[in-house]
């Protein structure tokens, strides 16, 4: 579980670690924490999965990965976990989530593929469908067009007050 100091620490680093010789020392100065405490808390947060990963966060679009497809399937509930786990093992899948169906949107499994162009993404999707036996299920492919907004969530809880970058909710 997160305590108040973890919240403060995540808030402080969500916009990025300083690019300076002793970044954890610099963060600690801002928070009144020792360098050792910053390192120890980050290690625990990473170990327990409250930080999914810590490292360089690249900008796909700027690096030439401009085709971004969200693929949704309607998978029988009994199979969704097994197939979700299999899809996640694919090297080109960047997100894979189960969500509820709605009366107007009958899909329950979502994954995201980023590629350099549409053809590559579609080829990867066909390979994924073959590898994971997904051909029989209803699906839709939703390529992104305009990006209206993309930034870290401004998260304002009761107290304490962190703001954090979330994975795609």
């Amino acid at each position, binding site marked *: 579980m*997160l305590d108040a100091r973890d*919240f403060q620490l995540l808030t402080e680093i*969500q*916009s*990025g670690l300083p*690019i300076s*010789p*002793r970044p*954890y020392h610099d963060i600690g100065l801002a928070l009144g924490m020792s*360098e050792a405490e910053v*390192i120890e808390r980050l290690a625990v947060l*990473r170990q327990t*999965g*409250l*930080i*999914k*990963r*810590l*490292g*360089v*966060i*690249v*900008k*796909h679009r700027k*690096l*030439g990965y401009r085709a971004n497809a*969200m693929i949704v399937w309607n998978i029988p509930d009994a199979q*969704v*976990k097994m197939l*979700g*786990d299999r*899809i*996640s093992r694919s090297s080109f899948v*960047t997100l*894979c*989530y*189960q*969500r509820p169906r*709605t009366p107007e*949107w009958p899909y329950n499994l979502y994954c995201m593929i980023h590629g*350099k162009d549409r053809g590559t993404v579609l080829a990867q999707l066909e390979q994924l469908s073959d590898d994971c036996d997904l051909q029989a299920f209803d699906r*839709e492919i*939703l*390529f*992104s067009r*305009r*990006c*209206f*907004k993309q*930034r870290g*969530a*401004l*998260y304002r*809880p009761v107290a304490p007050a962190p703001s*954090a*970058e*979330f*994975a*795609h*909710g």
Partner: protein
Amino acid sequence: MLTDLHKHLLNDFQRDFPLVERPYLEIANQLGVSEDAVLSALTELCNSQLISRIGPIIPPNQIGTSMLVAMAVPESELQRAADIISHYPEVNHNYERENRFNLWFVAVASTAEQLARVLDAIESETGYKTQRLPLLNDFHIDLGFRLDLTHA
């Protein structure tokens, strides 16, 4: 033009960033360059916006509660609806996608009640219904993104 150092920094340190007093020195030692070279190259990558930052990825719903939302909006109304939605500080991603459900966004708030209030307000302000698609299961272990930088 990306140097080999840039390419290594982009691909090799997306996870397991060193948790030691001098992490950039540790990276420098692994790559056989100086700490200064690493610091300058990372600053260049940040300035040219090829990396957004060095930081944490926090899974959804660990802090607060988040929701993926879809809306079907006529093309002529899309920009107006998107502007209304983007204006909310609770909204982070907001994309147009190729589908009859053509507007997709993620909203986060500290409580489910607060989140519902925001989405209710968005419905009444835009005049379109939301499909609320909360996360039930996250299957993906985020190991970062393998970039092909052969021609970069």
